[in-house]
């Protein structure tokens, strides 16, 4: 990786690594009587390792100007490998916590192994570790290809990728040692949050700079979605994490909002994290990899416009549906509910646009598991957005809220939509980036597809059953007019579904392991170096790149 950096970039990289290491040292010293100290030490080591890596390659030959006639794909490759590593770790912890729910005593009497600490390791590992790295890597690919322009420099993509993973590592390790601000999907404390702001703004600027260099008159839809993802996540992250540290030598901070305002801010964040992290970003992915794999034009450009603006506008209002029947004023709940209902049609338009794009290519869906991953992902996107709007209706929510139905809904989206579209994109991308004819084993892609689909279906059905049973048990009255079931009765009734859920998750995890093996073997296999195809190179940029026009 260092060999692709210019001398100036190597110097800046060394400086940045040293600054990170210094910041780590300062935190380690200031927080020596606090869990913060451990994190300071981690940051110090991380900075030193980066500095060491740069130093080792520092005196290597500089990349020649010929590079400017190519896309910059090294950070994409690294991002995909890191994403798959997070997938295996995050899903493994997911199966672990699912097993804990069925057998709650299996914590070895250790604080770090309690459900409350492991669960965010799972959610952060899969959402931010797997999903985030996959989004960053694919966005680097899509923005360059659809702009026909190379990224403006070599350092900022690495800064984004390496910096983002430092954030993920701080988050996950913090939960295990008890550092959390107890906001769902925003658990990391103030210093990690500040670091993510720096990384994320760099990401946004990098994306905008690349778009500014584009050699296409128009910006393709996928970029709208990726940009919405980056921009809105920045806004959400900053506002929801406004907090005052209790001291600069400690990890603990207190949010500036309190009570119902804090709850509303948190779920405005939480629901838009679903909207812009887990939906918009992955729609960007779908808009590039699905049509290229299917070899079909997008069903309707006009429909894309309706979907995009519908989703970006309506999602912003929907967060309050997480707080139905709470201290939140009734009118705020009404707005959340009605905007969630209006969100349905734009969401379905995206799913429909994707599925109808496959018209004329259904034989490919039948034969190609990679394209089938993306097709089923669009189906699950449609299913879970319908379910989401449905669950947001207050009287429905009265039954579903606080039950496993919510968990099932989230996983229909997270497994069925987010993970499947990502696997489809990765299987499309790996042979392209490493210049192979195809994946090492198409049979293993097929196996992964069926494991993932079976796991998702088992998981979602188990949670639908347990969620609805729970909801009904909690509200059933007996003839004498008092509650018919105790809470523990409902727990006993859940046990078989929890076992089934853990099994479904296990299938999904095995699929991810099979996929990682397949990707690894594809990378390891000797390059079959297919002929360069049209679109493999950027159009000559304004930066004075020499003869970069593709051969054809």
């Amino acid at each position, binding site marked *: 990786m260092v060999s692709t950096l210019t001398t100036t970039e190597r110097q800046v990289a060394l400086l940045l690594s040293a600054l990170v290491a210094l910041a780590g040292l300062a935190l380690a010293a200031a927080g020596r009587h606090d869990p913060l100290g451990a994190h300071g030490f981690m940051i110090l080591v991380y900075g030193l390792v980066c500095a060491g890596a740069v130093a080792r390659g520092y005196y290597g030959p500089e990349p020649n100007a010929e590079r400017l006639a190519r896309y910059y794909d090294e950070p994409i490759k690294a991002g995909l490998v890191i994403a798959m590593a997070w997938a295996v770790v995050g899903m493994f912890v997911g199966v672990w916590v699912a097993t804990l729910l069925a057998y709650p005593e299996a914590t070895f009497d250790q604080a770090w192994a309690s459900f409350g600490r492991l669960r965010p390791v799972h959610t952060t590992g899969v959402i931010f570790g797997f999903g985030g790295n996959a989004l960053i890597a694919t966005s680097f690919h899509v923005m360059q*290809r*659809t702009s*026909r322009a190379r990224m403006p420099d070599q350092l900022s993509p690495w800064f984004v990728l390496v910096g983002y993973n430092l954030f993920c590592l701080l988050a996950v390790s913090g939960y295990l040692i008890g550092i959390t601000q107890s906001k769902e999907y925003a658990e990391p404390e103030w210093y990690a949050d500040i670091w993510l702001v720096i990384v994320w703004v760099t990401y946004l600027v990098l994306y905008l700079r690349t778009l500014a260099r584009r050699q*296409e*008159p*128009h910006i*393709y*839809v996928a970029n709208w979605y990726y940009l919405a993802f980056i921009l809105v996540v920045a806004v959400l992250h900053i506002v929801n994490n406004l907090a005052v540290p209790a001291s600069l030598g400690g990890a603990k901070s207190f949010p500036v909002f309190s009570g119902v305002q804090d709850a509303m801010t948190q779920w405005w964040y939480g629901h838009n994290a679903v909207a812009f992290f887990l939906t918009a970003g992955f729609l960007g992915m779908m808009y*590039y990899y699905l*049509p*290229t794999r299917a070899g*079909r*034009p*997008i*069903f*309707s*450009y*006009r*429909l*894309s416009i*309706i979907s995009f603006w*519908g989703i970006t506008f309506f999602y912003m209002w929907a967060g309050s549906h997480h707080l139905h*029947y709470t201290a939140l*004023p*009734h*009118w705020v*709940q*009404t*707005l959340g*509910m*009605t*905007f969630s*209902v*209006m969100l*349905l*049609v*734009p969401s*379905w*338009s995206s799913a*429909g646009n994707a599925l109808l794009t496959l*018209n*004329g290519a259904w034989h490919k869906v039948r034969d190609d598991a990679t394209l089938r991953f993306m097709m089923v992902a669009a189906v699950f996107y449609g299913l879970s957005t319908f379910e989401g709007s449905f669950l947001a209706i207050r009287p429905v929510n009265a039954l579903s809220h606080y039950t496993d139905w919510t968990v099932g809904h989230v996983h229909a989206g997270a497994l069925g939509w987010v993970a499947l579209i990502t696997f489809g994109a990765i299987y499309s991308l790996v042979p392209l980036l490493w210049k192979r004819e195809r994946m090492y084993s198409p049979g293993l892609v097929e196996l992964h597809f069926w494991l993932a689909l079976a796991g998702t279906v088992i998981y979602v059905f188990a949670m639908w059953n347990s969620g609805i049973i729970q909801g009904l048990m909690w509200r059933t*009255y*007996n*003839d*004498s*007019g*008092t*509650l*018919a*079931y*105790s*809470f*523990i*009765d409902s727990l006993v009734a859940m046990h078989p579904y929890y076992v089934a859920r853990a099994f479904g998750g296990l299938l999904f995890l095995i699929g991810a392991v099979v996929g990682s093996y397949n990707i690894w073997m594809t990378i390891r296999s000797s390059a079959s170096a297919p002929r360069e195809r*049209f*679109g493999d190179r950027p159009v000559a940029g304004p930066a004075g790149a020499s003869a970069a026009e593709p051969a054809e």
Partner: protein
Amino acid sequence: MAVEERDAHTGYLTTGHEWNGITELNRPVPKIIWLFLLSTFLFALVWWVLMPAWPLGATYTRGLLGVDQRARLADDMASAAAARADWMAEIESKPVEAIRADPDLMRLARESGRTLFADNCGVCHGVTGAGGPGYPSLVDTAWLWGGDAQSVAETIRVGINTGHPESRLSQMLAFGRDGILERQALSDVVSYVRSLSNAPLAPAEQAGVAAGATIFADNCTACHGEDGRGSQDVGAPDLTDGFWIYGGDRRSILASVDRGRQGEMPSWETRLSPVQRKLLTLYVLDLGAPQ
């Protein structure tokens, strides 16, 4: 430089742009999308008119139906209370013994007492009331503070070793840890205590019983009584009945004498209503055979 192309499969023109091989059809939005979109807008509009919806500075649009979630909750609670008011009133007013003699009322008390017990008491005493290590069984005949209706109701109300001003208070001293008894004396008194409930004693234990009896008489009788039958006035357990909260084996009894015991039970006075506590009293009395 947009060049529209006609897609052979669908017959539509593309928008004329192409990104890395991707094109888009310039197909109009299907009518059904507009229809669905408009119907969800209409639904939202109607809902806004009927329900509290839009903020207006310090207030908000109340909606034509005049629905308010707090008022609705209060109504729901009131109507649920009304549905069980007849028999609840009887439970509240009648003496416990009269209720226990009334099979219809007892059926209702058992029905609602079961969930009340499992939700509030089951965490410690177990959902069946059988207790567990450290938590007394409520299905046996042994009672720390008395098994009559009044005693059980009072224990539920004030709790044991709580911050309630009238809390029941009880403490077993840490005879070993605090240096009140020597090591040998601890061992002997444990042997004696085990002999009280006719536990099968090893020969080595047999030897200590006589010495243990003296130590017991000097140190333990104030609470547990000369005969070791305990006292419900101070919550001292009966050591002769063969029921044990913390275990009746040699090791467990030694631990109790060595480090003392001070079990806690929460006070339920502020958490549960009087009639709920009465239901629990009835349910607990019904669980075990009273004295």
